[in-house]
């Protein structure tokens, strides 16, 4: 059973142009005890939503009739949170979050709500949820709990497998990934080099400059111009990742 509630405080985005990002409510609000109107603590995805909102604001500044915007949808699938639907909605209002729709479903059906809402990217802190969504062809990523919030939306793409994608027919999820990237690339082009509200970062961890260079050019040919590039060639990833401060990390591995 899946139900969707529109947030009437927020202007709905154009369905076929918006970049729909779904986030689990568990990641946005940390609702502890079950008091009726209690304000919840913010969760790990909160800085991300704020950054997405800033991108939208800037896009509309550049062009008030812009339709390529982030469309944020909140997914609530665990029964505990279901009972707190009114709390979730009131907290959204309280924190001023630009969430357009609230989707409630059972744990088994949540992928259905993703598909119904034409979700382009699904973010969660739960690895199994991400895997399930992925299997249904929805591009998914895990939220990095250790992110320091930054004004700018920082998207890090681990590009080790960009080249190899071309040797096999792409899966539904890979297609979803590519189209998400193309949308991001188009969004990025709305802004100049300096003072952009989003930054696209390429990280190659295994290969050397050849891998990174090829990835840069391949992405460019798909309309995605990276701002930053890091080639690790086996150097430890975690110190670099903590400096990069990604809001989310998109990894495309063909093999483990």
């Amino acid at each position, binding site marked *: 059973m899946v139900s969707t509630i529109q947030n009437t405080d927020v202007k709905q985005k154009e369905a076929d142009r918006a970049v729909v990002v779904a986030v689990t409510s568990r990641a946005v609000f940390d609702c502890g005890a079950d008091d009726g109107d209690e304000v919840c603590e913010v969760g790990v995805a909160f800085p991300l939503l704020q950054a997405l909102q800033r991108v939208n604001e800037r896009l509309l500044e550049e062009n008030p009739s812009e339709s390529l915007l982030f469309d944020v949808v909140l997914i609530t699938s665990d029964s505990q949170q279901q009972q707190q639907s009114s709390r979730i909605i009131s907290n959204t209002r309280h924190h001023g979050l630009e969430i357009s729709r609230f989707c409630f479903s059972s744990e088994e059906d949540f992928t259905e709500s993703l598909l119904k809402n034409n979700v382009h990217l699904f973010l969660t802190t739960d*690895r199994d949820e*991400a*895997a399930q969504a*992925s299997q249904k062809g929805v*591009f*998914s*990523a*895990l939220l*990095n*709990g*250790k992110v320091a919030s930054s004004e700018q939306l920082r998207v890090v793409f681990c590009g080790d497998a960009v080249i190899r994608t071309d040797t096999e027919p792409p*899966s539904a*999820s*890979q297609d979803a*990934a590519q189209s998400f990237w193309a949308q991001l690339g188009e969004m990025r082009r709305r802004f*100049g*080099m*300096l003072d952009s509200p989003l*930054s696209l970062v*390429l990280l190659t*961890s*295994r*290969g*050397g*400059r*050849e*891998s*990174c*260079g090829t990835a*840069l*050019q391949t992405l*460019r040919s798909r309309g995605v*111009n*990276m*701002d*930053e*590039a*890091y*080639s*690790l*060639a*086996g*150097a*430890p*990833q*975690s*110190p*670099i*990742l903590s*400096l990069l401060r990604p809001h989310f*990390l998109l*990894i*495309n*591995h*063909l*093999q*483990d």
Partner: protein
Amino acid sequence: MSEIKLTESAPTEDNGEEKDWAAAKAHFDNLKTKIPRPPKPRYAVTIAVSSRTLFNMVKERKVYEDEGLEKYVAYQMEHESEPLMPGVAFPFVQALMNVNSRLRQLYPDSEELFDIVLMTNNHAQVGVRLINSINHYDLTIERFCMTGGESPIGYLKAYMTNLYLSKNSDKVMEAIEEGIAAATMFAVDTDNELSKTQLRVAFDGDAVLFSDESEIIVKQHGLDTFFDHEKEFVNKPLAQGPLKCFLEALGKLQRKFIAKNERLNCPIRTFLVTARSAASCGARVLKTLRSWGLEIDEALFLAGAPKGPLLEKIKPHIFFDDQMFHIEGAQQMGTISAHVPYGIGQKYHKGKLIEQPPKKE
């Protein structure tokens, strides 16, 4: 085939590191064209070079300064397939690569090698031209950071950098403040024939290898007081300066050649070029080095004579000094020089106190 992967926050640092390393090793071992695999950062001597020290980007820099960032990036992209000309750190990098080949011959499985990293705040789209240029000269540079405008200082630490070379003195000062050996390089017009078989590195002593404690005495109390002081404290080791650890790293690699009976044929040679005189204040310097367990191949005491002519004979791939006066003297005679912005020497020029501009916030 998995589409998503958890960022390794749960396992210990070592486990994550080992996995990253093993995956990279597999990648390089499986490449069709055998390029040397970059060493493990914790064992390597990591040298970070900026794009403007590695390549000559004077023309491009002018576009940036006259026409702004967007035009500059567009210019670089237009000229992407044209390799850039070698820059001031280029001979140094080639000499490092030569040492690596010799080390790989003697120690095929060792990770104790030079690791050259490109550290630039250029935009990633400019990076394509940088990568093409590195390809053109076949340089073994596999690691890089193109920060798109952010300061590279944090990344220097993340890559465990042993030496950072840049044209930007602010970045160099920041690095030194963070405890990373660093120096600002200057363009030099030279046809000096540098050795292709031996890496030659020259260091000034005070405020480079050693702290500036003695230089403070000279500047504030004069030479006579300085000589007396040095005689009195001859057996007290000087405190270390910003480039001491780099000399130490070079020494570690030198010993690997000595261990294989290659002392006479060692592809690394170090020089101390100091304004001190051997008789009155030289002993303390040598004793300090000895107390640190460090060796320097040649120690040259100039007793105040200009460094230029001597350096012209030595022909180092790089010469480190803290005083611009010496840097300029060396440059005039064709030596590739790198300024270490450390210590009291920064406040003086040719012995006179400089008016300090208010510190930039």
